[in-house]
């Protein structure tokens, strides 16, 4: 197998295993990364919500926030891992696609 194909295989394996990034923190009762709390968590931690933070926090509504399809997961929590894998596949393909376009553009316009 060519090394490029091996790399893609490896990334596929990572995408398939990605729910570990969801399940392990849950199992060990670990919260979000430090400094990445939602507004409710901040209020709980500090007793108030910084005013500027409140204004900026919802600047952008991401289509798949937190790499999970919430509506789908709420119906069947067991499917949350599946939505995580789906996010991994979408993310991998979009990243690779955008990078290919940029690289091709750069090479072509040498």
């Amino acid at each position, binding site marked *: 197998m060519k090394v490029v194909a091996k790399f893609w295989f490896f990334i596929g394996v990572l995408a398939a*295993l990605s729910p570990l990034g969801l399940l392990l*923190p849950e199992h*060990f009762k670990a919260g979000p990364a430090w400094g990445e709390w939602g507004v409710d968590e901040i209020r709980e931690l500090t007793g108030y919500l910084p005013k500027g*933070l409140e204004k900026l926090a919802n600047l952008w509504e991401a289509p798949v926030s937190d790499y999970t399809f919430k509506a789908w997961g709420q119906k069947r929590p067991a499917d949350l891992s599946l939505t995580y894998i789906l996010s991994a596949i979408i993310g991998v393909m979009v*990243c690779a696609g955008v*990078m290919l376009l*940029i690289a091709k553009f*750069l090479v072509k316009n*040498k």
Partner: protein
Amino acid sequence: MHIPDGYLGPATCGFFYLVMLPIWMVASKIVQKALKARQVPLLAIAAAFSFVIMMFNIPIPGGTTGHAIGGVLIAILLGPWAASIAITVALVIQALLFGDGGLSALGANCFNMAFVFPFSGYYIYKAVSYNAPVISNRRVVAAGIAGYLALNIVAALTGLEFGLQPLLHRTASGQALYCPYGLNVALPVMLSEHLLVFGWVEAIVTALVIKYLQKQAPELLTESK
């Protein structure tokens, strides 16, 4: 390490966008010159790899989570400038599609993870592996050390950016406007959790892949700029 919207004040956000603009321009110029057609698929893989490795949240039991970035590995294989572009792509997609990292903080997040990270890791690797043959164990060790140190450098930098906010922006009554934690909290917390846990994850991932490539594709480990 993906700073969300609302944690950095407008001055900090604007500053890092201004710093990143010339870096992105120079990176595209340099990559354009140095990139060979056969490296294009590797660059796409690099962006995809960085994206997916960041989904592996590692827990500190009862505490917070963190993750590797994979960027030192990319810098070793494709050079720091190409790594900078590949990680930027991953960070932009994460912010836009998945809400991981804020749009206002994107300049800062790119400066930390797509500039300081690959560059510091790359030069630490170069220094430690200086003159070592492609298949030597010193290269594997150098890759691990570079991953570990670079992630901690970036953790400290991120802690600094968080911690400066209460100094920069306060209400008249002294309440923080953005990140509520100052340097005395943000810096030691960010640094200690990366020194103790997440840095090791980056080190192991980087060293293992280099070890694997020494056997499978040593040609990828010859010098790249």
